């Protein structure tokens, strides 16, 4: 181990002695040096803030979650027969050109009767895997950890902590519209302001 020897305490002490010996003889130079050092450090703190604040703001901008959901059509209500549950998809309203297939969001539409619907998010409330509808047993089953939901979306079995997430919907001029555009999760089943 040659390196630890090179900065052994004895050498450091010698250097310190040398520094203190030269200091008094050049006291005016020293105060000038201190001033320059302080100005230099101060300027760099300001510069770091000027550089850093916008950088951090840029990097964390998505933390503020400014986007809002909007009404999207799932198609004419005639496509959803009464008493049945069908897969529908909508295009994410905030999609970019380079999103590819990920912009297409699937959801389950259950037409309860002529007027009332239930639109479920595809994501299991446990960990977000896509649930599948089984018409014969009238259950939604999740492939990941074995969660199951009844046809009205309520929890039937397995680890999910609640029933399926539901979209707000409305029927407008014969079209079924949902308020969509975000991945529902336990913190945010619906977007704030989606009422």
């Amino acid at each position, binding site marked *: *181990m*040659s*390196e*630890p020897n090179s900065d052994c305490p004895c050498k450091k002490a010698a250097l310190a002695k040398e520094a203190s010996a030269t200091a008094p003889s050049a006291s005016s130079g020293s105060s000038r040096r201190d001033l320059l050092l302080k100005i230099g450090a101060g300027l760099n703190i300001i510069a770091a803030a000027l550089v850093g604040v916008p950088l951090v703001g840029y990097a964390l901008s*998505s*933390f*503020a*979650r400014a*986007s809002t*959901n909007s009404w999207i059509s799932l198609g004419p209500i005639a496509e959803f027969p009464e008493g049945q549950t069908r*897969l529908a*998809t909508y295009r*994410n309203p*905030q999609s*970019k*050109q*380079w*999103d*590819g*297939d*990920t*912009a*297409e*969001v*699937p959801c389950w539409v259950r037409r309860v009767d002529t007027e009332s619907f239930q639109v479920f998010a*595809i*994501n299991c409330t*446990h*960990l*977000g*895997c*896509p*649930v*599948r509808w*089984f018409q*014969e*047993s*009238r*259950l939604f*089953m999740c*492939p*990941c*950890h*074995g969660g*199951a939901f*009844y046809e009205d979306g309520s929890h*039937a*079995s*397995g*680890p*999910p*902590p609640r029933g399926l997430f539901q979209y707000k919907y409305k029927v407008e001029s014969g079209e079924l519209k949902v308020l969509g*555009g*975000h*991945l529902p*999760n*336990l*913190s*945010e089943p619906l*977007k704030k302001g989606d009422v």
Partner: protein
Amino acid sequence: MLKSIALWLEDRLHIVKLFESTAGHKVPPSTNSWFYVFGSGTLVCFVLQIVTGTLLAFVYVPSGSEAWTSLQYLNNQVFLGWFLRAMHNWGSIFMVAIMSAHLIQTFLFGAYKYPRELTWVSGCVLFLCTLGMAFTGQILRFDQDAYWGLGIGASIMGRVPFIGAQLVHLMLAGSVIAGETLSRFFSLHVFIVPGTIIALLSLHLRLVLAKGINEYPKPGAVVKKESYEAEYEEMIRKTGVPFVPNVIGKDLIFSALVMMAIVTCALFLGPQGPSGPPDPRLIHTAPAPDFYFLPIYTALALLPAYMETFLLLVLPVILLAVLILLPFYSGTGEKSYRRRPFAVVIVMLALLTAGLLAYLGTFAPWSPHMEAWRHAPTPIAELKGRTPLQLQGAILIQSKQCRNCHSLGGEGGLRGPALDTVATRLTSDQLIRQVIQGSGNMPAYGKNLRPAEVTALVEFMETLRPSYQPAAMDPSRR
């Protein structure tokens, strides 16, 4: 002529001095051991990952709409593209495995004790960064598993109290999984995490040089803060040998074997994926994580629901604190694993737990077999000599998708108990109640079955027992 060039270079670069303080530094001769090869093995994997990763970035397109196609192009059209992908994948598996061995070795050999606390801490963070690389790398393979893996990550973030929604947004770079999410993970996988690893690795190696490598511990040689460093210096001065060339031989052999193993695996087992395209409309998929995260995947399926948020958000913090702070509450004393039975038991328990959970994760007995109701045949023995009503029940067991969770003749889901001997366990009254009301993990089918269907179903299930075992009986009605 050559000599004068060498001398000129030495004069300008001080190579001899550099060598003496780095590769040629003195180490205890006891470290010339096969147990000390895992650190350099991990380093070799990391360098290989950087090289193969950089080359893959020649072709890979980190765009939501193009990434999957560019991986197909790499697999099928680029010269040796499949091999590079395979090397990168197997390199990551080997890196995690060898790094785990390194962690276990340094733990069992007490290498984390005084004065090497920071070597341990930086090593633990390096381990986390490597797992971070494994997760982000899985996302860059932008396929179905990656898409739903992101959904799982977002769901976990969504469980964080107070700032869950914001964390989901930060992770996904928006409200949904989309192109920007991939760009974010590309930056993490290619710049941020590798940059952190290189910085920490420099610190880690610098600390190995500054504080010396841990000697092979002798049982009974106790670490004391007052005397350890002087003793170590003394040992190095008396018996120390230069790492190069005296000790590096075993590291070289191990590194070469690791590289050969990676090449062999890549050659014969090939690259992983991509599986189906990242189209959320293709819901007929069963997302599963890469093998490193299988234990967590299993734990999330098997733990009771009330423990989940604790397991996801609190337990990792506690475990990490226990691991990282280890040298600060157990920094002195016995180093040898021969005198630390508790340490050995902890390692064995940790490996057993992780191994068992990962094994269960490979076949996920908790997941319904989504296609069993259509594809799993009914054993002929269970149909012979049955009444029409019982046969009607046999059909209902298929058509009502019972087989997705219940197996018959070894085929079907493992979520619920196998039905082969159900008649020995439940009476007809109990069967009716179970079908209609459900219980435990079984949904209630009361609304979905007409009374006649329940009767047929139960009639059939009452025949499901071996001839040598009696049917279940209600003692009160005997």
